[in-house]
C-alpha cells in the first residue's frame, strides 16, 4: 500500500509539525515565567509581576492547544503505525508511559494552580507550582527525546522471532548515542524560539512607546538570551552533526548534498540536488570546508550518498534545504544577539529602531528553525522508522488509502480552524502593550454580565506602579 504509507506519513508530519511548536513554546515560556515570578518575589518590582501576568495569558492559550494536539499524537502511533506499535512498542511504549507518569500528570496537576490559584494558595506556593510546571515540561522533553533518539540510533535491544524489539538494557535504550546531543539541542531551540518571540513583542511595543518599562525589560531579557543561547546552539548543533556523521552518515551526506565520497569534501552553500541524476546542480561550494567542519581535518574523508544503496537513502532535496534554512536562521539569530550586545554599550539598545524592526521580523525565526531541524532529522531517518532496523513501509497500519485520506483532510480542516483561531487570539494578546497592574489571565469579559465592559484597571495606577523613567 505505497499510497496509504505516503498519506499516513503526510498526516503524521502534519499533526506532529503543528504539535511540536506548542510544547516548544510551553517549554521556553514556562521557564521564562518562572524566572519572572522568581524575580518578582525576590526584588518586589511590579514590572516583573506585570510581565508574568502578561505572558501567563499566552502560556494558558499555548498550553491548552499543546495538550489537545498531544493527545492526538499518543493515539496516532496506533491508528496509523500499528505495525510499528506492535513491534517497537515494548521499547518505545514504556518510555512514553514514563512521560505520562512523570511529566503529563505533573504539568496538568499544577497548571490549574499556576493559572487560577494565585489568590488561593499565596505567592510562595504559587511560585512552587510554576516551577513544578517547568520541571514537567523538561521531564517531558527528556522522555520524548529519548524515544526519538532511540529511533535514530537504536541500541540496548534484541529482535525476537516475531520481529518484536525486546529491550535488553534500559539504560542503553534511554542514553543512546544521539540522546545527549538531541536533548540539549531541542531544549536550547525551545528557549531560543521563545526568546525571539518575546523579543519581537517587546520590540513592537518599544517601537510604539520607547518608555514602556515592561517592554524594555522583556526586550532586554530576550536579547540577552539571543546573545548567549544562539552561539551556544551553533556549537551544540555542530556537535550534534558530528554525532550524526558517526551514527547516520547517510543523513549527513543528504544534508550536505554530497554524492561522492571525498577527502576534500566541499561545503555546499547552495545548489539543487537532483536525485535521478545523482548530482547537485548549480552548486556554490567551498572546497575542503566540508571535510574540515565534519571531521575537523582539512583532508578528512566524508562519505557521499553513492556509498549507500539507493533504497537506504533519504529524500535528498528536502533534507538538504531544511538543513540550510535551519543553519541560516541560526546564524541570523546569533547575529542579532551580537548586534544587541554591541548596542547595549552607551544604552542604545532601546533606541535602535532598525534592530527592533529586525527583531519584530524575526518573531517566528526560532520556530521556523526548529521545524526545519525536525524535518532534517526525521526525513533524514527515512526510509526507516527505527533506523537501520524497521522500514517505514513495514510500520504501517492495515488502514486502506481512502480512510487515511479522509482523516488527513479532517485533520487539515480542524487544525486550520482551531489553530488559526488560536493564532489570532495569540496575536490579539500580544498586540496589547503590557500595562502597570496588568490584569490576570481570567479577568474580564466572559466572567461578567454581558453588556458591562469594565474599564482597564491600569487607569488609576498608571505612573506610580512602575518607577517613572526619563523619556529620551
Amino acid at each position, binding site marked *: 500500500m505505497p499510497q496509504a504509507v505516503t498519506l499516513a506519513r503526510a498526516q503524521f508530519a502534519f499533526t506532529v509539525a503543528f504539535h511540536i511548536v506548542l510544547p516548544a513554546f510551553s517549554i521556553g515560556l514556562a521557564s521564562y515565567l518562572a524566572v519572572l515570578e522568581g524575580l518578582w518575589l525576590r526584588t518586589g518590582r511590579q514590572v516583573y509581576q506585570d510581565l508574568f501576568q502578561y505572558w501567563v495569558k499566552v502560556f494558558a492559550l499555548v498550553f491548552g492547544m499543546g495538550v489537545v494536539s498531544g493527545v492526538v499524537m499518543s493515539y496516532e502511533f496506533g491508528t496509523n503505525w500499528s505495525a510499528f506499535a506492535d513491534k517497537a512498542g515494548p521499547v518505545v511504549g514504556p518510555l512514553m508511559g514514563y512521560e505520562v507518569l512523570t511529566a503529563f500528570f505533573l504539568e496538568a*496537576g499544577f497548571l490549574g494552580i499556576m493559572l487560577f490559584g494565585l489568590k488561593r494558595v499565596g505567592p510562595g506556593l504559587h511560585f512552587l507550582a510554576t516551577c513544578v510546571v517547568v520541571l514537567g515540561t523538561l521531564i517531558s522533553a527528556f522522555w520524548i527525546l529519548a524515544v526519538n533518539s532511540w529511533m535514530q540510533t537504536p541500541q540496548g535491544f534484541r529482535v525476537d522471532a516475531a520481529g518484536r524489539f525486546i529491550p535488553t538494557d534500559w539504560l542503553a535504550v534511554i542514553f543512546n548515542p544521539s540522546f545527549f546531543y538531541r536533548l540539549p539541542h531541542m531544549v536550547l531551540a525551545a528557549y531560543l524560539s521563545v526568546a525571539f518571540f518575546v523579543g519581537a513583542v517587546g520590540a513592537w511595543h518599544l517601537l510604539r512607546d520607547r518608555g514602556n518599562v515592561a517592554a524594555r525589560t522583556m526586550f532586554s531579557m530576550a536579547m540577552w538570551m539571543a546573545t548567549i543561547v544562539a552561539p551556544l546552539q551553533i556549537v551544540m548543533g555542530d556537535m550534534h552533526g558530528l554525532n550524526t556523521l558517526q551514527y547516520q552518515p547517510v543523513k549527513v551526506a543528504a544534508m550536505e548534498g554530497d554524492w561522492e565520497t571525498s577527502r576534500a569534501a566541499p561545503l555546499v552553500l547552495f545548489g539543487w540536488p537532483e536525485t535521478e541524476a545523482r548530482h547537485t546542480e548549480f552548486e556554490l561550494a567551498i572546497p575542503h570546508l566540508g571535510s574540515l567542519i565534519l571531521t575537523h581535518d582539512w583532508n578528512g574523508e566524508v562519505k557521499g550518498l553513492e556509498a549507500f544503496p539507493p533504497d537506504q537513502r533519504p529524500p535528498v532535496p528536502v533534507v538538504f534545504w531544511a538543513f540550510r534554512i535551519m543553519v541560516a536562521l541560526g546564524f541570523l539569530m546569533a547575529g542579532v544577539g551580537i548586534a544587541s550586545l554591541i548596542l547595549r554599550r552607551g544604552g542604545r539598545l532601546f533606541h535602535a529602531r532598525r534592530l527592533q524592526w529586525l527583531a519584530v521580523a524575526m518573531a517566528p525565526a526560532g520556530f521556523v528553525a526548529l521545524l526545519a531541524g525536525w524535518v532534517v532529522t526525521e526525513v533524514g531517518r527515512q526510509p526507516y522508522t527505527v533506523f537501520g532496523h524497521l522500514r517505514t513501509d513495514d510500520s504501517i497500519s492495515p488502514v486502506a488509502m481512502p480512510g487515511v485520506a479522509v482523516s488527513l483532510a479532517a485533520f487539515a480542516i480542524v487544525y486550520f480552524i482551531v489553530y488559526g483561531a488560536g493564532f489570532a487570539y495569540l496575536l490579539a494578546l500580544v498586540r496589547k502593550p503590557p500595562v502597570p497592574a496588568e490584569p490576570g489571565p481570567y479577568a474580564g469579559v466572559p466572567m461578567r454580565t454581558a453588556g458591562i465592559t469594565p474599564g482597564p484597571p491600569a487607569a488609576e495606577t498608571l505612573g506610580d506602579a512602575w518607577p517613572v523613567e526619563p523619556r529620551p
Partner: protein
Amino acid sequence: MMTLPWLDLPLVWGGLIAFAVLAYVVLDGFDLGTGILFAVERRTEDRAVMMNTIAPVWDGNETWLVLGGGGLFAVFPLAYAVIMPAFYPTIIGMLLALVFRGVAFEFRFRAVTARGRAAWEFAFLAGSTLAAFAQGLTLGGLLQGVRVVGGAYAGGWWDWLTGFTILCGIALVIGYALLGATWLVWRTEGDLQRRCRRHARALGAATLALIVVVSLWTPMLNPTFAHRWFGWPGILLTSPVPVLVVLLAWGFWLGLRHGHHVTPFLCALGWFALCYAGIAISLYPYIIPPGITFRDAAAPPESQAFLLVGAVVLVPIILAYIAYAYYVFRGKVQHGEGYH
C-alpha cells in the same frame, strides 16, 4: 535485566490499565457531561459558571486518557495495534472532538465578540457530545468483538457501526450528562443548581433504563458472556452487580429528594463503577474478544517490569497531588467568579 518473575505482570498491568481507563471515564465523564449539558443550559452566565467548575482540573482528567492509550501501547502493544486501526474512524473522531472541547476553555475567554464566544460554546457542546458518543461506539464495538487475523485487524470499514454500538454511544452520552448534572449539583448553587437537580432526575431515570437494555443485550452478543453471567459459578460473582445498582438508585433518589449536594454524584459514580465491573466480568480474560486475551497481548516482561517499578512509585504520588489540586479549588463556584 529485571523481569520480576515472582509477579503475574500481565494480570497486574491489566488491573492498572483498567484502573486508568475507569479513572478517565469518571473524571472526564463529568467534564464531558458538563459540556453536554450546554445543550439545555443556554445562558452565557450559567455556562461560565459550569465551565469554571472544571477549568482548573479538566487537563489532569484528560491525562488519564493518555495514560490509558499510552499504557496500552507500553504494556499490551498488540491490543493497542489492533484496537486503534479497528476503530480508526471512532478514535480519530473522538480525538478531533476533544480538540474542540479542549481549546474551547481558553478560546471562549479570549473571544472578543459575543458571536465568537457563542461559537466556542457550541464547539464545547458539540466536542463534548461527539467525544462521548465516539467513546460509546468504540466500547460497544469492542464488546461485540473484533475480527483479527495474524495479529492484525481484518474487519471492514463499518464493523463499529451497528445497532448495539449506537445504543452504547447514546448510553454514554446520557450517562456522562448525568455525571455532569450531579457534579454541578455539588459545585454550584441557586437556580443553576436547582435546574441541575431536575436534569439529574431525568438523566438518572434514562441512564438506569439504558443500563438495563445494554446489560440484557450484551450477553446475547457472545455465548461466553451469557455463560459468565447466568451460568454456575459465575452467577455468584455477577448477581451482586444488579443488586448494588438498585441500592445506589435508592440512594440517588433519596439524595436528590432531600437536597443533598454530594450524594447524587457519588451514586452516579457508583453506577459507572458497577457497569465497568460488569464489562470487566464479561470480558475477562479477553482484552479484545473473541480471540485475544490480555496474556496474548502482553509486552515482554522486560517492558512490563520496567514500567511497573515507576507506576508503583508514581501513581500514589500522582493521586496525592491531584487530590490536592481538587482541594485547592473546593467549594461552590459563584457567578462572576473566575479564580482571579
